[in-house]
């Protein structure tokens, strides 16, 4: 029933649908309404899942168990490094990068040599991968045709060659349909996303069919598998293969961005950086879905075909066919075809761009005949078409030569290992300014040579193409040079072994040579702009590091030649309107225009060739390395300055705030001083008022009665005394506060101070009839203090006490005590006591306790503040404990000298 022609028709119909999708995508892009959404972008990344995934994963799972998953863990981890990929995208956008070869070449001084080298490595490395797709389609076709007439083709045409031819035609139609050769292909991306959906649906369909239609569900499958010792092994993680797992994860992680088609899709075709955010989770989810049924399919196949010959790589087809589900088998075939065509299309387009821009163009640019040609855009397309055909042909040849020796997965990994060689030059180029062209060339050559020797040639040897002596015995019979056990490193599988040595040598050479070589001006400039891409605004620095003369006519004709006149004029028009000029013919041929032209050319023919072309029409002044670095550094410095300025202004702001606070504090102090003077004035004027009034009256009235005379003179004398006392205390206070007081510090026995003070005031107490008692210890440690000052404090406290207690019933008790740290003196009275508020207020200047005329105390209101100053000078404290009606207890302490001070 499945005739060859029917299958061919179906395939062609499917490809026609793809073509329609692509046309639609292109049409929308041309209309400025891009259909590339975040979802489409994420799905297009699934071009990573080729027929290798579709057929090969199942095959690998039948032998390696879960290890097939490594190929999907690596990309998932790599995508998580969003910052790295974002930087790659940004660099590519700014520099109009067309391919991974262009990226590396542009970074290392727009080097044609490097571009060519990367292209050669990519082509040689990826051809096996393309062969793999051919092999997969051919194998799947054979399975289907086995069921019916295998000989529908003429004898001279084998089916794989036919497929390769069809794919070439299709890819040419698909990717090089445009006459203008720009770097982006939105239609292709749309078609690839569509294919991703088709292959996922097909794979899920066959997975569900086998798991639930042929077996009793997942648990049934796993139970049956576990029952067989051979199959049970597949379900377990094999710790002995941990090294392989690591190598596979690394390898696939690098492949997801460095395979030419992946770089094309992720970086070059990215239309919006924010799409990456979606891809970070959607793509891993896709990988998860497409892998869910891999193990069930592998187990199902092994169980079903037990004891029969089988090819595990085609289980997805043979299982449905075994149950006669031909429609499903066809769907699976279409899914596989999707996987294969998607890969082939994108890969060959990416490779053909590289071959055209980086291999053929440099050669063409040197030929004289080429210079005469007017419009080269058609030639460019032509070159790419030829390149596509040749690449597919190479794939076919490889398939014929080596395809039978390896399972699908084995072939794919050879390609992965080849593109992994780009890692040091790529990552180094993005993050390490010292990396040089010489280092990159050395690293790539070294790594590629090792890959060739340890992986590619052995795969030829295995096919019997070349002798396998170098694998078995080492080159020239030297055991150290055995291709898959280099320098005695055995025990690893061939991929891990090759990866280890090639990357080691690649990275080592890259670093060592880079450190020992010096970049030229162009290269140093590019290094700066790549590494600091997020800091350099491209336009600004690019135009500043170019000096020279160009003619408008020559630049325009250059653009016309490579882009075609229509597109060149269109782009020039856009550029002119961006710069505020209506007509591009009136644009000045300045550095901006030159840079614009070079960027446009770079999109068409790669940065290296574009550089050469622009240099050929413009008289450029050479700018020295130092100067380029200076200019680029200037941008950095300007940023540094602005940061500095920002810091300075912040500092100023802080200083202003501080100054304001200080000013506020000064104003407060000023107000306090004002208040103080006002209060002092008041305190001085009050006694003066009585003195003046009374003396004036005495002076003017000689006939005043004697009793009045005596009374007035008495008042005058006491007020004068008060005035004197006041003046003395104010001066004392001022001295204490300004720190100009004189202190005579010596060892003082506080008991002596207390006794003397009590003695000197004894008369006062007796006059008022107040009882004064003392309680002094037998011994008392000596303190370091000014004896007279301590006496002053003591007398002040005692005279306050006697002032406030009432006569006859008044009692004042003095108690002295000492502990290890301080001496404590208490003066307790049975006077009216103080409120909590008063307990603090009385220590302020000119504030006195008591508030009525009758108990208006005689005093200046400075005694306690002075006493507190003195006590605090010695490191002690003075405070009062009191409640209204319960008397007051004034306490002060004087600390004992510490052990050191005693010595």
């Amino acid at each position, binding site marked *: 029933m499945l005739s060859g022609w029917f299958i061919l028709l179906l395939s062609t119909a499917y490809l026609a649908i793809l073509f329609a999708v692509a046309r639609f995508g292109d049409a929308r892009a041309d209309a400025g309404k891009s259909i590339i959404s975040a979802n489409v972008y994420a799905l297009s990344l699934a071009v990573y899942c080729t027929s290798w995934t579709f057929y090969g994963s199942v095959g690998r799972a039948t032998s390696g168990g879960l290890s097939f998953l490594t190929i999907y863990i690596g990309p998932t981890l790599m995508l998580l490094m969003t910052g790295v990929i974002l930087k790659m995208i940004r660099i590519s956008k700014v520099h109009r990068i067309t391919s991974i070869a262009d990226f590396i070449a542009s970074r290392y001084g727009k080097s044609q040599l490097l571009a060519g080298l990367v292209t050669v490595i990519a082509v040689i490395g990826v051809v096996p991968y393309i062969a793999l797709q051919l092999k997969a389609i051919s194998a799947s076709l054979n399975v289907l045709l086995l069921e019916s007439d295998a000989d529908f083709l003429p004898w001279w045409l084998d089916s794989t060659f036919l497929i390769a031819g069809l794919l070439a035609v299709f890819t040419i139609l698909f990717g090089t349909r445009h006459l203008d050769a720009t770097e982006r292909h939105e239609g292709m991306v749309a078609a690839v996303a569509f294919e991703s959906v088709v292959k996922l649906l097909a794979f899920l369909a066959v997975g569900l069919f086998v798991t639930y239609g042929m077996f009793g569900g997942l648990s049934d499958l796993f139970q049956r598998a576990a029952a067989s010792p051979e199959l049970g092994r597949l379900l377990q993680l094999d710790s002995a293969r941990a090294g392989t797992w690591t190598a596979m994860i690394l390898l696939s992680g690098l492949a997801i961005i460095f395979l030419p088609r992946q770089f094309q899709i992720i970086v070059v075709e990215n239309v919006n950086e924010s799409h990456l955010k979606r891809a970070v989770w959607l793509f891993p989810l896709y990988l998860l879905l497409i892998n869910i049924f891999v193990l069930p399919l592998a187990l199902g196949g092994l169980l079903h075909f037990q004891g029969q010959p089988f090819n595990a790589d085609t289980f997805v087809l043979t299982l449905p066919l075994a149950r006669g589900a031909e429609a499903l088998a066809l769907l699976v075939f279409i899914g596989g075809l999707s996987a294969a065509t998607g890969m082939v299309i994108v890969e060959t387009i990416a490779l053909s761009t590289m071959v055209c821009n980086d291999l053929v163009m440099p050669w063409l640019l040197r030929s004289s005949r080429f210079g005469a040609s007017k419009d080269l855009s058609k030639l460019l397309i032509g070159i790419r078409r030829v390149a596509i055909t040749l690449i597919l042909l190479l794939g076919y040849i490889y398939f014929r030569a080596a395809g039978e020796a390896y399972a699908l997965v084995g072939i794919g990994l050879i390609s992965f290992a080849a593109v992994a060689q780009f890692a040091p030059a790529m990552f180094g180029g993005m993050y390490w300014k010292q990396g040089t062209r010489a280092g990159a060339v050395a690293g790539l050559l070294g790594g590629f040579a090792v890959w060739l020797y340890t992986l590619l040639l052995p795969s030829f040897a295995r096919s019997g193409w070349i002798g396998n002596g170098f694998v078995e015995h080492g080159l020239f019979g030297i055991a150290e040079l055995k291709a898959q056990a280099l320098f005695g490193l055995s025990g690893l599988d061939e991929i891990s072994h090759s990866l280890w040595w090639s990357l080691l040598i690649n990275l080592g050479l890259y670093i060592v040579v880079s450190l020992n070589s010096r970049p030229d001006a162009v290269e140093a400039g590019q290094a700066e702009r790549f590494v600091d891409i997020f800091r350099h605004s491209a336009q600004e620095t690019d135009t500043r590091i170019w000096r020279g003369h160009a003619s408008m006519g020559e630049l325009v004709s250059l653009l016309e030649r490579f882009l075609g006149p229509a597109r060149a004029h269109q782009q020039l028009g856009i550029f002119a309107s961006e710069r505020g000029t209506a007509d591009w013919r009136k644009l000045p041929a300045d550095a901006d225009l030159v840079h614009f032209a070079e960027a446009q050319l770079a999109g068409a023919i790669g940065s290296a060739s574009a550089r050469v072309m622009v240099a050929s029409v413009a008289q450029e002044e050479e700018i020295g390395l130092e100067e380029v670095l200076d200019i680029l550094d200037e941008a950095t410095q300007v940023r540094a300055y602005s940061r500095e300025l920002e810091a300075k202004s912040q500092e100023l702001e802080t200083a202003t705030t501080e100054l304001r606070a200080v000013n506020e504090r000064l104003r407060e102090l000023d107000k306090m001083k004002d208040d103080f003077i*006002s209060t002092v*004035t*008041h*305190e001085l*004027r*009050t*006694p*003066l*008022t*009585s*003195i*003046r*009034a*009374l003396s*004036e*009256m005495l002076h*003017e*009235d000689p006939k005043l009665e004697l009793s*009045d005379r005596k*009374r*007035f003179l008495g*008042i005058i004398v006491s*007020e004068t005394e008060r005035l004197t006392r006041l003046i003395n205390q104010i001066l004392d206070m001022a001295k204490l506060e300004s720190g100009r007081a004189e202190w005579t510090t010596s060892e003082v026995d506080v008991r002596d101070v207390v006794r003397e003070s009590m003695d000197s005031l004894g008369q006062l107490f007796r006059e008022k009839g107040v009882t004064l008692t003392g309680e002094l210890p037998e011994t008392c440690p000596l303190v370091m203090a000014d004896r007279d000052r301590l006496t002053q404090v003591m007398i002040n406290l005692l005279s306050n006490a006697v002032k406030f207690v009432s006569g006859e019933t008044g009692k004042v008790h003095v108690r002295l005590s000492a502990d290890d740290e301080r001496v404590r003196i208490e003066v307790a009275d049975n006077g009216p006591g103080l409120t909590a508020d008063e307990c603090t207020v009385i220590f302020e200047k000119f504030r006195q306790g008591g*508030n*009525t*005329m009758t108990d*208006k105390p005689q005093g200046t209101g400075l005694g306690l503040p002075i006493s507190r100053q003195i006590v605090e000078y010695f490191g002690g404290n003075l405070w009062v404990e009191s409640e209204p009606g319960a008397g007051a207890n004034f306490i002060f302490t004087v600390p004992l000298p510490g052990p050191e001070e005693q010595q």
Partner: protein
Amino acid sequence: MAHKILIVDDEPNIVISLEFLMKKEGFEIAVATDGEEALAKVASFGPDLMLLDVMMPKKSGFEVCEALRADPANAGLQIVMLTAKGRDTEVAKGLAIGADAYVTKPFSTKELVAKVKSMLGVA
């Protein structure tokens, strides 16, 4: 009938001198030693003029003056503020709240007597 003068001050010696001075001039005198007492004495004694100290316990001279001026019954009462704080702002404040005159301590007895007499119209 002799004019009545209320002397308000918390300094006993100042009260003594003022009392003696004003009595000698033939005025009838009453004394208060804080703001509250002063308000009470205004009501009970009914003075024609009061010598009012500013810095006093319980109620300051300003507060007393304001309270008196708030009551129209006291419209005829002349108020002479006495203060030991001679700052211009205090003089202005005193006059603003309704004092009739402002005398700074220490004062000249002659001048004070002359001022009081002229204010009472007994020159």
